[in-house]
């Protein structure tokens, strides 16, 4: 039986061997070599990652891209120089090679240099180059690992690669300074990255652009674009090793785009010196990465082996005027030549059906979108509005004209006309094609009707807390309205009251997709087991003065439970670096890449915890797809761990679109388990809780629906609800795993004893197993962090992180996951820091 399985493995290897030939590539070029001086040199090329991990936009992954750069670089070194040996860490998309094996192989070979090729990930708007060589700070100086050379190689490559890719750069850094800053001394005086730390030769890791940036990733899809990056690395290698000079090249490259909007053109053909190149099209390439023929365009071309000197360039594309030029093809560098082709299509207005009467209410502005850049004055001169009334024109850009309608009358009819004398900005001065039949020279005519005057009061819904359940002691009060409100007098629009006492707090107003929501954040904990009244003022009114009319009072009860122990998973105040971009996860599917992103939000935050930042996820679903998932993955962060009897909570700001989100954790068996989906049918902030001991657990990926052992957070996940809006956003704040316990006292009792200075009492019991109570006192309201460290100074737990009012408080610390020993617990407040020791005996 065992013998058979081994046979099977042997067959697999035989198969892979056919695919990969041989991993280590010994080669001495048999072609005429133009470059000498590399005799005896060996280089180890490491295309980062494996298979299709580290997905980028459009389902094209980082390892697929960088492998092709590596293969092209190897081919250049082997065929154009006298280099002794080029090794590669992998030569196929199939093989999975861990970091440790890459470096073991490189070290065994004794290569002279290790070059690790990567591309970066981050926000969709970010794109740059970066070099990371091994180094750290010592006594105020940056120290490079030995043998030196990574910095020198990076200094050359950062210039070459940035020039080649024509994107910004953030430079060439010693790796530990990039990740941990520039103190006088790093505590770890060795390279930060594995490939720099464990290779015994000079080394550098390059990040060539961002595979999460749409502009960059569309170019990354192009086959020859990888040769461009490889060419930059090739020139770097021969300069670094002191070769005789660059071989003669004749490379013309650039982008062909639409002169009107700058968009790259698919299927444009460029001809130079008898060679021609047609830019990628949906049919030739992009169908592998998108079902939308219009989504992907790069306009990129790359022609090699051209004759040097002046060469005529002819560029053509269907629907555009041809362009010709002469370029000087350089012998020792790229010859960049970008081409903007002028459309032969006359200008027209898109997105409006002129055969229907358009209903526009005064105040709802109308945007006219032209398909070409227009000469604004000709449009303004050609535009008439009858009967004459007071409208205002605002150009949003050269092709978008906004018509301001707030002076129009209700229940009236108007005609908007733009005469054919409006012309585009091309030198061909095309006249307007008003009826969009493809032939210019006719007017655009649109009938407009305005609606009834607004005399309705705003309609309020989703008032929270409710009287249908016992509510938490720190609730966010909320009321949703069907329209925007007059914001001039909202400070006392919403109150939480006990008798005549009004709980102090902060009111926030948000507008979301034509609706609005008021949130109230009480600054005091409410009393347990008490009835409160949520009051909405009758003076709340819409933007034209229609008020609610009378106050709305809702009674709600509080529970007798409060958080007894809290593990903060992420309060997001420290940024989002641990969280992957949605498109980075290979599980993310069915999204519009450019509408889906992760970003730090500083305006909409949970004021209950005095939060300064939250995480905003913008989503755009491709509604025609059958599968929809966004995985907002927490990367390799495996802490903090928490037990499966806890309640996982997060404050969630909803957009009311009816799409869904859920929590996903990885359990002690490495299995992925999820909560049920929560339908986001609310506006504003709301606390969402997954009681992991009692609520359903749903298997995801390798999961089995059972939470085994200790857990850590894997991700938030989002999905689309068919028929609901396909774009929107959601915000997350204060993600935590809590235990609930009987509330210890009511607010009045809590404040009866107030210390004059911050106090931290000895934990009780002590020694303890496995839980103990930590009591502390605050002279005034304060931010509070209680952290536990081991005797080596390593943080082992966050007991509490948030704010507490003045007075004494007690939190419980559960050390089930820790081993016996002495630990230090540290209280940080606005008034100072105190530490004490405690002993865990198991």
């Amino acid at each position, binding site marked *: 039986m*065992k013998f058979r*399985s*081994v046979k099977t*493995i*042997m067959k697999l*290897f*035989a198969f892979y*061997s056919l695919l990969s*030939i*041989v*991993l*280590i590539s010994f080669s001495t070029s048999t072609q005429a070599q133009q470059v000498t001086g590399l005799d*005896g040199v*060996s280089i180890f090329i490491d295309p980062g*990652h*494996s298979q299709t*991990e*580290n997905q980028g936009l459009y389902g094209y992954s980082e390892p697929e891209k960088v492998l092709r750069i590596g293969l092209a670089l190897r081919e250049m070194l082997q065929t154009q120089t006298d280099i*002794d*040996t080029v090794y590669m860490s992998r030569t196929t998309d199939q*093989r*999975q*090679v*861990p*970091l*440790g*094996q890459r470096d*073991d*192989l490189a*070290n*065994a*070979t*004794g*290569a*002279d240099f290790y070059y690790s090729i990567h591309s970066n990930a981050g926000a969709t708007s970010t794109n740059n180059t970066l070099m990371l060589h*091994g180094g750290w700070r010592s006594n105020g100086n940056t120290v490079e690992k*030995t*043998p*030196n*050379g990574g910095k020198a190689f990076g200094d050359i490559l950062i210039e070459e690669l940035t020039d080649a890719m024509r994107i910004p750069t953030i430079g060439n850094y010693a790796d530990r300074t990039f990740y941990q800053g520039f103190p006088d001394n790093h505590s*770890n*005086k*060795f*390279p*930060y990255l*594995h*490939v720099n*730390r*464990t*290779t*015994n030769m*000079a080394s550098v*890791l390059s990040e060539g652009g961002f595979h999460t940036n749409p502009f960059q990733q569309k170019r990354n899809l192009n086959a020859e674009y990888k040769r461009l990056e490889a060419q930059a690395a090739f020139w770097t290698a021969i300069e*670094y*090793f*002191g070769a005789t000079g660059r071989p003669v090249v004749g490379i013309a490259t650039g982008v062909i785009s639409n002169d009107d909007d700058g968009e790259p053109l698919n299927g444009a053909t460029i001809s130079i010196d008898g060679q021609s190149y047609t830019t990628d099209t949906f049919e030739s390439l992009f169908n592998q990465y998108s079902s939308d023929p219009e989504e992907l365009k790069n306009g990129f071309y790359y022609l090699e082996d051209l004759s040097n000197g002046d060469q005529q360039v002819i560029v053509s594309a269907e629907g555009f005027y041809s362009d010709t030029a002469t370029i000087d093809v350089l012998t020792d560098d790229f010859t960049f030549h970008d081409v903007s082709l002028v459309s032969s299509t006359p200008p027209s207005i898109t997105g409006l059906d002129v055969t229907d009467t358009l209903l526009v209410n005064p105040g709802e502005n109308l945007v006219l979108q032209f398909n070409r850049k227009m000469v604004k004055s000709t449009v303004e001169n050609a535009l008439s509005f009858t009967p004459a009334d007071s409208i205002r024109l605002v150009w949003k850009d050269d092709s978008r004209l906004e018509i301001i309608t707030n002076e129009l009358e209700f229940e009236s009819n108007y005609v908007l006309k733009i005469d054919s004398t409006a012309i585009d900005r091309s030198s061909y001065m095309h006249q307007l094609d008003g009826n969009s039949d493809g032939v210019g020279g006719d007017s655009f005519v649109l009938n407009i009707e305005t609606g009834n005057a607004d005399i309705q009061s705003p309609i309020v819904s989703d008032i929270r807390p409710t009287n249908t359940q016992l509510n938490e002691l720190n609730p966010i009060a909320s009321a949703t309205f069907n329209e925007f409100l007059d914001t001039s007098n909202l400070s006392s629009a919403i109150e939480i009251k006990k008798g005549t006492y009004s709980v102090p707090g902060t009111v926030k107003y948000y507008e979301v997709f034509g609706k609005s929501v008021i949130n109230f954040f009480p600054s005091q904990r409410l009393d347990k087991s008490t009835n409160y009244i949520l009051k909405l003022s009758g003076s709340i009114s819409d933007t034209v003065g229609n008020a609610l009319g009378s106050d709305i009072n809702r009674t709600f009860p509080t529970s007798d439970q409060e958080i007894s122990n809290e593990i903060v998973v992420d309060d997001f105040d420290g940024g989002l670096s641990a969280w992957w971009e949605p498109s980075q996860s290979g599980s993310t599917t069915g999204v519009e890449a450019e509408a889906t992103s992760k970003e730090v939000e500083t305006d909409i935050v949970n004021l209950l915890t005095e939060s300064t930042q939250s995480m905003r996820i913008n989503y755009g679903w491709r509604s025609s797809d059958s599968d929809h998932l966004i995985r907002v993955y927490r*990367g*390799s962060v*495996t802490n903090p761990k928490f037990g499966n009897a806890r309640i996982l909570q997060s404050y969630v700001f909803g957009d009311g679109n009816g799409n869904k989100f859920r929590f996903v954790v990885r359990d002690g068996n490495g299995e992925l388990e999820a909560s049920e989906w929560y339908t986001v049918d609310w506006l504003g902030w709301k606390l969402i809780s997954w009681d992991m001991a009692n609520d359903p657990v749903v298997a995801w990926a390798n999961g089995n629906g059972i939470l085994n052992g200790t857990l850590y957070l894997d991700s938030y996940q989002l999905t689309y609800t068919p028929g609901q809006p396909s774009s929107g956003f959601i915000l997350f704040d204060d993600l935590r795993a809590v235990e609930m316990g009987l509330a210890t006292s009511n607010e009045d009792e809590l404040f009866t004893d107030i210390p004059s200075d911050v106090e931290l009492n000895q934990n009780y019991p002590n020694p303890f197993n496995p839980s103990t109570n930590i009591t502390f006192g605050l002279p005034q309201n304060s931010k509070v962090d209680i952290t536990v460290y081991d005797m080596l100074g390593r943080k082992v737990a966050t007991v509490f992180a948030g704010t507490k009012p003045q007075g004494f408080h007690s939190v419980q610390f559960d050390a089930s996951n820790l*081993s016996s020993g002495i630990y230090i617990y540290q209280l940080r407040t606005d008034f100072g820091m105190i530490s004490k020791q405690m002993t865990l005996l198991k």
Partner: protein
Amino acid sequence: MRFKKYTSIAFLLLITAFVSSKVQAQPRVAGEPQILLKQDGVNFQAPVWSPDGITLAVTADRYVGIWLANADGSNLKQLTDADAGYGFSWSNDSRSILTRVNVFENRRRNHAISIFHTNGSAPDQITDFRPTMEALPKWAQYGEKVVLIQNDKIEAFDSGMEMPQQFKSKPSQAFYVLKSNEIAKGKIPTNSTENISPFDDAQYLNLEVSPDGQKLAFEVYGGNLYVMNVDGSNLVDLGKANRPDWSPDSRYVVASVSEDDGYNITKGDLFAFSIDGNEKVNLTEQSGLIAQNPNWSPDGSKIAFDVPTEGAIYVLNIQQ
């Protein structure tokens, strides 16, 4: 007579039970891992016990330098600051360390074989410095020789060390080396090799011979960890694991099972694998450490390993 018979059977059963319990006993961790070596400014890694178990040799990040310490971590001293720490190996008498040293000049590395001595005497340089040395040197012929693969051919050198008396009457000792795509078994003095690779065109790494000389453990590049007999038979797949090392009784292999994110190793546990592939014991499950590069002490009581995020050498106590 009957009494004697039953007594004999009971005695046999007792012996059988004792023997079988010895054979089936799994390695078991006794207590938490303890830090054995840590020093400011040095990131220790890749510990290797001397054959007599008295000394632990370690290197640092980038495999620069070799340090020696007593088995309890005391008396730490640097043997060399040379670029010499990758793939070094102890001599049988625990007095010397064979390695490849590298020097850097004009952005090229040159390599030579050297033997360092724990008594502090000057190292013996076995070869001139060469621009390429694509493999690591290995001890052969009970330490009397050093062999090296160069261009897939065996080069043999005198180590300058005398073969211990007890081996002089023994036949030539086989050695095992890695060629570019091959596990090769060789013999002195013919320097001929025999291909004992289980797979065609696979790449092999981290070949380790069992203490009893009967087994080999090795990694397939981009693949799994395996053990097999030294004649290439009885191949057993142990799964994804790296940097194997043998238990002194040759019944288990300890190796690290890791995950990485392409930039750094994010998880790492040490597992003891029985060589029949039927047992797999996580030795560091509760430690929370990223454990790498395990090395089993010659008496079987300890496993030393490194934690790359800390630059420290830890030790696990093992009960079998």
